[in-house]
Structure formats: structure tokens, C-alpha cells
């Protein structure tokens, strides 16, 4: 059996996920041995645009040129895997996606300046444009989760990730709940996988792994309001990394809140 043909691509993001792949250190040789990497611009020259078994795509899509490239990758790949929160959920650059008004925001930043590169789009996750078979979220992705998924794909198996919120991992590490201290924490909304790194250092979860399988946005929202945060602040904080997705779930919440106030 020949090794699976793999391509690794980056769009709008910090390239941290590709860097994390290169940072797999002791496993990197195994990785390069198990798959045939045809394209990985960050790591090698001599990249080929050929048929792929698996394409890993980092970053959100924010220009027409990127969109064309993405469609081209999709057309060549049997399986397309979004890696990192930007590719999976849009990342911080997509936090206002649900609000609309991109043209106005764009103008506010760039004015009438002529942009020589490709026409800009509102940043969106990869699956807003093409079919995505698997999402490996994270900011950046976690080595263990990434290698677990790649190993399964190479072996013809289905990757499995924790579907529960990061609170579970946080409890495994015996941390005190930050919410109980009256402080903001996005843990209950956020998928596990990072090993609860931030709360283990007493830093609240900011939600960088994206939404979990079954989040109760309404309950989290209400809880934070009760703790004294303003609705604007709560909204801003919980939509930071996966704004589009969380904002969808938040629709109607404010209405409910206002009704309650009446």
C-alpha cells in the first residue's frame, strides 16, 4: 500500500497550526514516513499541485484568490480537514460575521485606499465555501489530537475527539471553577482537547477551541450577566474565537433577556 498523499495549506491565520505540525519534534519523522507530503509551503520547496488523499487546511478564507485556491484544493482532495479554529470556525477575524456590515467595517479601516492584492471578503470558516470532512480545532491545534487524527486517517479509521466541554478536563486536573470566583470563563461553551491549559494556570478559558458539542449559551450568558458583566461585554467575549457559530446560537437570547427585564 502506498502512503497517503497529503497536502498542507495555510490561508488567513497566524500559521500557528502548521508550525505546530512542524513542532511535533520526535514524531515528525514518523509523520513524514507515514504520509507522502506533496505540498507544505511552510516546510518545503518543490510543492506539487496533484491529486491528494488528504488536504489539511489552516486559516479562514478572506480573499477571492484564497477562495479560488481552496476550491482547487477541494477538487483535488478526497478528504479535506480543517485545522485550527480559524479554518474550523472563522477565528477572531470572523467574530462579527453574523452582524453583517462588512463593507462599512472595511471602509472604516482601509478608507478608499487601493488594495493591489485580491479582493477582500468577510473572513469565513472553510466549510462556508466547501465541504469539510473533519474539523480539528485549536489555537493552535494540539499535537496529540492532530497526530491521533492523522494516525486514524492513515489507518482507514475515523478520528475521535472529546466532544465534551473543557470543564471536564479542567476538573480532571482538579482546578477550582473560575466561574465560581465570579469571573468570566468560556469553559462551558468550549470544546475540550487543550487539556485545560489556561484554567490550570488560573487564566480563564477564552474559548479558542471553538464551541463544544452541546453548549447552553443561554445559561452561560445569564450567569455572566448575574455576575455583573454587561451584555455587550459577554457577547464580545464569548464570540471572540468562534463568533459566527456562537452568534447563531445567541440569536433570540437578547430578546428573551429584554422580555425578562420587562
Amino acid at each position, binding site marked *: 500500500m502506498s502512503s497517503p498523499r497529503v497536502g498542507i495549506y495555510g490561508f488567513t491565520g497566524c500559521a500557528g497550526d502548521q508550525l505546530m505540525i512542524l513542532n511535533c519534534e520526535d514524531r515528525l519523522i514518523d509523520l513524514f514516513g507515514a504520509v507522502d507530503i506533496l505540498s507544505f509551503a511552510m516546510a518545503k520547496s518543490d510543492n506539487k499541485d496533484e491529486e491528494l488523499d488528504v488536504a489539511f487546511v489552516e486559516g479562514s478564507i478572506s480573499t477571492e484568490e484564497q477562495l479560488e485556491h481552496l476550491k482547487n484544493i477541494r477538487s483535488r482532495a478526497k478528504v479535506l480537514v480543517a485545522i485550527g479554529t480559524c479554518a474550523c470556525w472563522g477565528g477572531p477575524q470572523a467574530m462579527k460575521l453574523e452582524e453583517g456590515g462588512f463593507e462599512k467595517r472595511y471602509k472604516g479601516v482601509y478608507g478608499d485606499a487601493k488594495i493591489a492584492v485580491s479582493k477582500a471578503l468577510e473572513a469565513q470558516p472553510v466549510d462556508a465555501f466547501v465541504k469539510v470532512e473533519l474539523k480539528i480545532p485549536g489555537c493552535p491545534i494540539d499535537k496529540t489530537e492532530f497526530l491521533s487524527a492523522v*494516525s486514524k486517517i492513515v489507518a482507514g479509521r475515523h478520528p475521535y475527539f472529546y466532544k*465534551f466541554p473543557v470543564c*471536564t478536563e479542567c476538573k*480532571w486536573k482538579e482546578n477550582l471553577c473560575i466561574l*465560581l470566583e465570579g469571573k468570566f470563563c468560556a469553559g462551558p461553551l468550549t470544546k475540550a482537547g487543550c487539556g485545560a491549559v489556561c484554567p490550570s494556570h488560573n487564566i480563564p478559558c477564552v474559548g479558542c477551541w471553538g464551541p463544544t458539542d*452541546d453548549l447552553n449559551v443561554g445559561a452561560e450568558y445569564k450567569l455572566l450577566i448575574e455576575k455583573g458583566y454587561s451584555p455587550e461585554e459577554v457577547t464580545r467575549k464569548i464570540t471572540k474565537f468562534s463568533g459566527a457559530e456562537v452568534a447563531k446560537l445567541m440569536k433570540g437570547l437578547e430578546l428573551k433577556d429584554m422580555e425578562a427585564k420587562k
Partner: protein
Amino acid sequence: MMILKMKKEDLSVFLETVKEWGELWGPARKGERVVFQRVDGLSQMDLKATRTIIPPKKFLYPQRFTMFDFDDKGYVERTEHVPNRILFGIHPCDIHGIQVMDELFLEEYRDPYYAERREKTLLLGHSCIPDDKCMCSARDTEFIAEGFDLFFTDLKMFYLVWVGSSRGHDLVRMRPELFNRNIGRDDILNYNEYRKWKKAQVQSGADFTGMPDIFELGYNSPIWDELAEKCLSCGQCTMVCPTCNCFNVVDEVELGTVEGTRDRFWDSCMFREYSLVAGGHNFRDKRVERLKLWYTHKLQAYISEFGEPSCVGCGRCVATCPVDINVVTVTKALREQEVGK
């Protein structure tokens, strides 16, 4: 049951001695938190702390571990080296919790991973100072008659030491001169005072009487929907509960091979995936259905042959839930048909 007397100041020497048998673990402070961790001796423990974040179940079935290694020739049990461990300072509620787990994991279809760890773990209980979250007296778990190897009741000047097993007795025999059997009239009076004091300390106001019936009557009560609207589905209650045993199992493969491991990790009935079957049907798709299952096990009846509800009144769900859903508030809400603020 053999009950011995020991001078308080001798405890430190005793613990120093029993370290010959195995690693010494106890409740220790880590910043704001109290967790069971390995200690050098008594001075590193905090015996006044009411509860640790996770109960001692973590020693008997770790949060995540490997059950099997496999390759194309089959599955091979992973036997990891489990050290001998002495857990000192376990409170009665947690020993009750371990007894529930013992029954589940050691009786029919003995779980070898649990059994291995259980066998290599000695439980040295210690009396506790209840706080406003403890509900042991409502669950009759404030005292413990069995399930430990030794149990130390602190009576200010000395300890009364219950010897609960042959192995516990072996520890006593390592330093027999520290113990005596001269229990007199004052000791009995002191012990009786201690029992009265302890009962009076438990002030959570929890009342579980008639709960199985109230639970049954209130099964379709809208109270549940109100609770579910608040529930974050974060799963913390299940992780900290001494009688939550649920686990999930996944296979991991090594890169470029069909070899790998079968791993097991703590799961929770609060998660949507918990009752999901292939094809997408979910037997508990709604949060409210998941809440009901947990509280059925804690307050109405655990698994059929155990008969009883499994809550041991440790108060961890009370101390942990960010939105105040716990055995006390749920019991109260069902009883009064109103969700408290």
C-alpha cells in the same frame, strides 16, 4: 471490630513508619485548592480541610488510562505498575463512596484495572470537620463502620483507631507500642460527645426523606425544565461525584500501523454523546432527560441490585456547580415545586 487508642503526637511517627509499606498520600493544599497528593509526612497534609476537589476515586480508576495494547494478533491487557499507596485522611463519606464503587467494579464481572489498584491501596480514614455544604447526616454517611483499613477519630488529646482489616492491623503491628487497648469511661463519654458534635455541625439543611417517591411523583414536573435551562452541561458535577463511575472507551492507533491502544476515560451522563447510538438516534437528546438520569441515580435508586440511591452527601456537587444545581437544590425544588434563586 478492634478499636485502639493512640496519642495524637504519635501519628506523625506512625505515618513515617507505614511509608515502608507504600507511598503516602493525603489531602494537601495547593494554593486555594485541596487535593489528594503524595506527601512526605503529616506536616504536608491539611487534615482540617473538609473536602478535596476530586474524591479518592481517581486512585482507583484514573481519569484516563490504557486498557489494552493491540496489533493484528489481538488485544493484550496493559498492566501498568501500580505502586502500593496509603491514602491517609479519607473522610467517611468518601469511604462510603468507595464501597459503592467496590460493589460496582468488583462483584459481577470483576474489573481488573480497578481491582489491581484497589488491592494496592490502603484506606486510612480520618474524622472530618463538616461545613455548610456537607449532607452526610441526611444520607446516614457521617460515620463509617467498614470499608477502611484503619480509621482515626480525632478526640482532641488522642485518636481512637478503628482497625477495619487484616492489612490495617499489619500496619498497627509495625509500631504496636504506639497503640493501646485501655479504653475507659472517659473515652466512651468523649466519643459520644464527638458524635453529637459532628451531627450538629452538618447544617446544609438537606432532607432526602421520601425522595424516591417525590422523585417518581415529580418525574414530569416542569421544575426539571427550569433546571435544564440553567444547566451548562459542563459535566463538573459528575467528575467530582464519588459515585459517578461512567466511562467512555476509544481506540487510538500508532501512526502508520494498525497497532494501538484501547483507552478509557471518565464520561458523564450530562453530555449529549452519552446516549447517542449509531445512526444518530439519541435516547437523551434533551438536557432535561440527562439531568433526570443523574438525579435518579443519586436520589432515587442507583443500579437495581444496589437498591439505594448512591449520593453519599459529600457536598462536592454543592461546592462545584457554577449554576447551583446540586442534590440539595434539586431535592428542595422537587419537594417545594419551585426552583430557588
